[in-house]
């Protein structure tokens, strides 16, 4: 009975403490640098890949846009295969990104005239 009470108490505590929805790691910093024209592409890829592996081991969810951003870095590094894999990963993790990922994957030039 006391074990049950303890379990109940622990469960109610879990409900109170707000957990972040996602594991952010270097992502905010990477976005900031990308927007400011940072050019250490391979370094950023390494940071993001390392954190992604750690998050997977801890069972944490990567935030919206994480894989897409990684895909963009791979384009800049000239690795189109990895780009495609990351865009598809973003799409499967967040179906809401589907239309944009499809746009990036299909025709990167067409369909955007004024």
């Amino acid at each position, binding site marked *: 009975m006391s074990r049950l009470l303890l379990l109940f108490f622990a469960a109610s505590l879990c409900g109170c403490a*707000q957990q*972040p929805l996602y594991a952010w790691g270097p992502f905010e910093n990477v*976005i900031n640098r990308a927007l400011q024209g940072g050019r250490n592409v391979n370094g950023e890829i390494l940071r993001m890949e390392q954190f992604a592996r750690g998050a997977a081991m801890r069972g944490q969810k990567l935030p919206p846009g994480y894989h897409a951003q990684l895909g*963009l870095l791979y384009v800049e590094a000239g690795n189109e295969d990895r780009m495609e894999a990351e865009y598809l990963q973003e799409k499967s993790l967040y179906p809401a990104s589907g239309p*944009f990922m499809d746009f990036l994957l299909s025709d990167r030039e067409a369909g*955007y005239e004024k």
Partner: protein
Amino acid sequence: MRSRMSRVVLLVILVMFSSFGCTFIGVNNAIPRFNQSLPRVLLLVPPVNHTPGSSAGESLLAWSVVILSEAGYYVLPPALTREVFARHGFKRQEQIRKIAPEKLQRIFGAEGVVYLTVEGTGTNHRVSGIRAGVHVSGELVDLRSGRTRWKGKGESQGGRTFSKLLPEPMQMVISGELRMTASESAAGQAAMNLFLNGDPPLPPGPYRQD
């Protein structure tokens, strides 16, 4: 004897259920309700930056991704959307505002656009953009109807001081750990103050429901 025992058990079960009910109702009241009709997929466009020479706009965008995602929206990655805009000659917010909403919906799958404006506070503004205080304002426009769904403003004094405490319901939307990290930069403070503690705060999005 046996019936008395079962009555006691029944009573205990009933009491437990009622207390369960209380906690659930309490939680529901504490978290502001998500409005089902709000846009789920948000497009962040380059802010109008009135602090020339500073990177306040870019830093605010990066932190807006964090805060808006944690508040329960899907935020399209701004480095990628900016690339698409730039490739077609759209660099400034004023130009992007003129694009037909249907086009933004089709290409990005966006349901809403967030427009941001950054202004220096004047007195303690420094060109570094790191410790300078900023006034920020934001607007969420629904691409499906063209209606403004939220409009707010916030500010940050810069440095590490975090003047205003978040109101209690909003404390539940974002974790203490993340709040600490965000409050270490002016842009993080500004994004939190704008979206969570703004006047008025942005309602939580669909991915915050669970």
